């Protein structure tokens, strides 16, 4: 799972769809790794927020997925991959306020339609790929200052 290879590191964290009680565990682990590596506070916060938003989206909308973390000199990449319903209209999903969250998701304190735009603001670069009926991949990059 955790291969440190010179100055590169690759980590993988499974995320279970529908499991709200475990939601955030992967992002919390990622945050702790970055802290141990001595990454700057501002970067850790941006990565933690974006990774958590993507983890919550997997829990809320997908069947299952994974957070992949790639740490290299100068850059951290977080890729949230899931098997799930996919996003039919990505542009619409990115709009603040657009949400298909169920009452259960709202009860957990989510579903304001802010997650994807928040991820986009936190990351230096974000690309969403999605196939309806198959799943979604969100790739985010964070430059290390």
């Amino acid at each position, binding site marked *: 799972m955790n291969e440190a290879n010179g100055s590169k590191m690759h980590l993988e964290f499974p995320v279970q769809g529908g499991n709200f009680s475990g939601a955030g565990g992967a992002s919390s682990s990622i945050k702790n790794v970055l802290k141990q590596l001595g990454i700057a506070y501002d970067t850790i916060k941006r990565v933690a927020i974006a990774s958590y938003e993507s983890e919550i989206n997997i829990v809320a909308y997908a069947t299952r997925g994974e957070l992949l973390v790639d740490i290299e000199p100068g850059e951290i990449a977080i890729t949230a991959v899931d098997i799930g319903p996919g996003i039919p209209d990505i542009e619409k999903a990115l709009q603040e306020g657009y949400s298909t969250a169920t009452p259960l998701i709202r009860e957990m304190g*989510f579903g304001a339609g802010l997650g994807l735009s928040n991820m986009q603001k936190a990351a230096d670069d974000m690309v969403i790929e999605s196939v309806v009926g198959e799943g979604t991949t969100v790739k985010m990059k964070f430059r290390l200052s």
Partner: protein
Amino acid sequence: MNKKELQKTLSAETIFDNGAEPETGYNTVCACDMMSELLAVMNQTRRHNHGIILLTGLANPQVIRTSELVDIRLIVLLREKKPTAEMVELASKCGITIMSTPYTMYKSCGVLHERKLNDVQLETGAD
């Protein structure tokens, strides 16, 4: 403000104490019922958040998890809401203090504003 003063100001009960006080004391308040909103607000701050008090009417484990991820160390549950056992366990793992106040959101904000606590400093937008 330290935890004892906060407890008095809000007539609150401390349910779990992380045993620490931030160097700055608690000097900032974020009042928020939705975790989506809290994340959006925290995404606009650049400083350490250890002096932030989160006032929330939401009592579920995601409140603790979200706070941990944005470095909030003190949560006040409003209107006498009590944390579940799962929340307390997670809070103790994450080192987050939980209090419970009988006050509403409005009254809690009012008394803390009177005591000159700050709003969260957003990096962009008006204050």
